[in-house]
C-alpha cells in the first residue's frame, strides 16, 4: 500500500517535471531511429516540447479549447495547453480509465469523456496549472462550460470568444472586436505588452502550414490512399488543433507533405490492397486500443479522408490579425447551420472518390452527432452507403467491440 503511494508520487513528480520531457526526447529519438514515420516523430517531439514548456512555466501557460485559434497563443508569446488533446493522448497511452472514473463522481457519465478524462487529471493534479484560460463558444456547449468550471477550480481568469451562428459584417465585427478585447485583457491580466509583430509572424507561420495542408489534402485524393485515416484522426488532427502559428506546425506539415509526395509518386498506398474508399465523419475516433481500423483493413477498405482535416478557412492576413482570425472562426463548417457542413461533406465525397461513409458517434457529443441523421439521409439519397458507428472516444468501457464489428462489416457488405 505504502509502496504504491510512493510509486504514484514518483510518477506524478516525473509527469510534472519539465526535465522528464527533455530527457525523453533523446531516448525516444534513439528508440525510433529505425522508424521512418518522420511526421509522427515530429508530433512526438512537438508534444514533448509543449509539455516541457507547460511545466517549466517560463512563459504564461494558457489553457485553450480545441478549435480556438492557437495562433492567438503563439502570437502573444503564451504557451498553449490543450487539455482535450492531452486527454486523447492519455487515452492513446491506455491511461484514461482512472481519470474518467474519478471524474464520474462529480460529472454525469453522459458528458464528453475527453472532458471527464481531463477533469480527472486536473483533480489528480497531473496537469500544469493555467495562468489564464481561453476558449470559444463553438463547437460545443460542453467545452464552454467545462473550461469555465476549470477556471473556477484553478481560480484563474477565463476569456471566451463568442462565435456567431452565421457570417456577415455584423458577425465579423463582433468577433474581431472580441479578439481585440481578448488580446488587451489577457495582456493586462498577465502583465505583458502585446507585440503585434510577433502576432503577424504567428499568422505567417500558420499560413505556411496552411499551404502545406492544402497540398496534403490534394495528395490524399490519390488512389491508392497514401495516408491512413486512423492517423489523420490522431496526430494529424492534433497538429491542426495545437501547432498552427508555431514553427513546429510548418515543420510537421512540410515533412508530411514531402513524405506523401514520395508515396504518391511511387503509387504506394497505406493498405496492402485498397478496394473501397471511405470517409470518416466526426473529429475523433476511439484512441484506446480497438479493432476498427484492423477490421476495415481486413476488408480492404481504406479511410481515405476525415472531415476534421477539411481545410475550411481562407489564408490569413498577417497585417490584420483580428479580422482574419475572425474570418477563420466564422468559416468553421461545424459551427452554425448544418447546410455548410453537408455541402463540405458532399464536396469531400466527390474529391476523394468515396464509396461509403462512417459517422462516428461519440457518446458525449451532441453538436456533430445531432446532425448524423440528416447528413446520412442526404448521402443515402445519392446512393452512398452510410453508417453511424456508436462508441466513445476516450472511455474504453463505453464501447461494444461485437456491435462495432457487425456495423462495419455490414457497411462493407452493402458496398458489394
Amino acid at each position: 500500500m505504502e509502496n504504491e503511494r510512493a510509486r504514484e508520487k514518483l510518477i506524478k513528480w516525473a509527469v510534472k517535471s519539465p526535465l522528464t520531457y527533455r530527457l525523453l526526447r533523446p531516448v525516444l529519438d534513439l528508440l525510433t531511429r529505425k522508424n521512418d514515420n518522420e511526421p509522427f516523430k515530429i508530433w512526438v517531439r512537438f508534444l514533448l516540447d509543449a509539455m516541457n514548456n507547460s511545466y517549466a512555466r517560463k512563459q504564461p501557460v494558457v489553457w485553450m479549447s480545441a478549435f480556438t485559434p492557437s495562433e492567438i497563443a503563439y502570437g502573444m508569446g503564451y504557451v498553449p495547453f490543450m487539455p482535450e488533446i492531452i486527454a486523447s493522448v492519455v487515452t492513446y497511452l491506455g491511461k484514461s480509465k482512472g481519470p474518467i472514473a474519478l471524474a464520474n463522481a462529480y460529472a454525469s457519465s453522459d458528458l464528453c469523456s475527453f472532458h471527464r478524462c481531463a477533469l480527472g487529471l486536473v483533480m489528480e493534479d497531473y496537469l500544469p496549472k493555467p495562468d489564464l484560460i481561453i476558449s470559444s463558444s463553438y463547437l460545443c456547449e460542453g467545452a464552454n462550460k467545462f473550461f469555465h468550471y476549470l477556471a473556477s477550480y484553478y481560480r484563474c481568469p477565463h476569456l471566451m470568444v463568442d462565435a456567431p451562428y452565421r457570417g456577415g459584417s455584423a458577425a465579423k465585427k463582433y468577433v474581431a472586436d472580441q479578439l481585440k478585447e481578448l488580446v488587451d485583457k489577457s495582456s493586462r491580466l498577465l502583465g505583458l505588452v502585446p507585440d503585434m509583430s510577433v502576432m503577424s509572424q504567428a499568422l505567417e507561420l500558420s499560413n505556411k502550414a496552411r499551404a502545406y495542408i492544402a497540398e496534403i489534402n490534394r495528395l490524399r485524393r490519390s488512389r491508392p490512399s497514401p495516408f491512413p485515416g486512423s492517423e489523420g484522426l490522431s496526430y494529424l488532427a492534433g497538429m491542426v488543433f495545437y501547432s498552427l502559428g508555431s514553427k513546429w506546425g510548418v515543420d510537421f506539415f512540410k515533412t508530411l507533405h514531402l513524405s506523401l509526395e514520395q508515396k504518391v509518386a511511387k503509387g504506394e498506398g497505406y493498405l496492402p490492397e485498397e478496394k473501397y474508399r471511405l470517409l470518416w465523419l466526426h473529429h475523433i475516433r476511439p484512441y484506446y486500443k480497438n479493432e476498427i481500423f484492423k477490421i476495415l483493413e481486413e476488408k480492404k477498405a481504406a479511410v481515405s479522408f476525415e472531415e476534421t482535416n477539411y481545410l475550411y478557412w481562407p489564408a490569413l492576413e498577417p497585417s490584420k490579425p483580428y479580422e482574419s482570425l475572425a474570418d477563420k472562426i466564422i468559416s468553421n463548417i461545424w459551427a452554425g447551420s448544418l447546410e455548410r457542413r453537408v455541402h463540405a461533406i458532399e464536396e469531400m465525397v466527390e474529391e476523394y472518390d468515396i464509396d461509403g461513409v462512417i459517422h462516428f458517434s461519440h457518446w458525449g457529443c451532441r453538436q456533430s452527432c445531432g446532425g448524423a441523421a440528416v447528413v446520412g439521409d442526404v448521402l443515402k439519397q445519392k446512393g452512398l452507403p452510410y453508417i453511424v458507428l456508436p462508441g466513445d472516444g476516450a472511455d474504453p468501457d463505453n464501447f461494444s467491440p461485437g456491435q462495432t464489428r457487425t456495423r462495419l462489416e455490414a457497411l462493407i457488405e452493402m458496398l458489394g
Partner: protein
Amino acid sequence: MQDRLTFKEILQDLAKAQASGEGKPLVGWTCTYLPVEILEAAGLQPYRILPEPSSEKADGYLDPNMCPLVKTNLGKAITGGYSFLSGIIILNTCDGMRRLYDAWRFYCPSPFSFLLDVPKTVTSLSVSYFKERLKELATQVEKHFKVEITTDSLNQAIEEANLTRSLSRRLISLQGRGAPPVKHSELLDLLSLGSRTPRSVFNKALEKMVRVLEGEPAGVSNAYRLLLTGSSLDGSALVRLIEELGGEVTISDICPGTRFVDYVEPSADPLFSLSHAYLHKTACARMFDSESRISALKESLLKSKAQGVVYFSLKFCDPFLYEAPFLEEALRELDIPVLFLEGEYTGRVGGGVRTRVQAFLEMLEKNGK
C-alpha cells in the same frame, strides 16, 4: 365573491383562447431569449413550442444521446403535430436546439423558419450584436408575413408584455393564498399556457387572479420550502410530487415558467431595449458566465428562506449537467442540501424519483431545517 374562479376554470378559459389565437397567424418559438414583442408588434401570435411528453420521440432522426425535449419536439413536428403553425423561430440556445432547427427544416419544413443567434456573453459588444440579429429577425418577419413593424408598435408590445411580467411576478409572490391556496405547480401550468395565449386574454386572467388573491390572507404552511432550478421540465409532475410528499416549491428558476425577463424599457430604440433586457435577464446555464446565475439563485434562496434545492436536468442537457458541480459547490458554502434529478421528458415521475424526493424531505426533517 362571484369573482372567485377556480384555477381549473381559468386554465380552461386560457386553453380555449389559445386554440383560437384571436385569428392571428401562430408562430412557434422555443426559448425565453426570444423577444416575443417583435412578433406581437407584427400582429402575429407567439406560440411557445412545448410538446406533450406523450408525443412521439424522434428516435432515429437524432442520436440516442440527444436531449429528450429536442427529440420530442422533432417527433411531434414530423408526425404533423405542428402543422397549424405559420412559422417557427428556434434559438441557438444549445447544441440540441441548433440541431433541432436543422432536422426540422430537413424533415418537415415550416413555411417560415428562422434561427435567432443569441450571444453567450453579456457585454456592450454582445448587446449591440444581438440588436443586429433582432433587426434581422424583424426584417425577415416583415418580408415573409407582409407586415410592418414600427417603433410605436414595438413599444406598445413591450408595454403590454411588461404588464404580463409584473402581474406574473406579483402572482408568484401570492403563492399560498386563496382557498385552496395556489400552488407552485399550478403557477407553472398557468405560465406555460400563457406562453401561447393571446396577451390581452392572459393579462385579463392574471389581473383577475391577482385582484382576488391579494384580497385574501396568506395561508400558513408547514411544508418544507424548496427552490427548484434546472433545465426544461416535462410538465409539472415533479412539482406535484413534491407537493404531494409534503414539500413546497416556494421559488423556481426553471423553464418553461419563471425564467422570464422582468422589465423592458420602452424607448426610441426598442430593439436595443429588447436586446439589453433579454441578455440581462436571469441567465440560463447556456450562458458563458455561471456566476451570475448562481448569485441570482443565492439571492432567491435567502429571500425565499428555502431549506433545500432541487436541481433538475433533462438527460443529455450539457449546459445544466456541466453546471451542476458549480452549483453544488456554491450551495455547500451556504450549507444548503441539494437533490439532483435527471429526467427523460416522459411527463411522469417514476418510483425511483418518488423515493429520492421523499428521502430528501426526510433528510430535511432530520436536519431540523
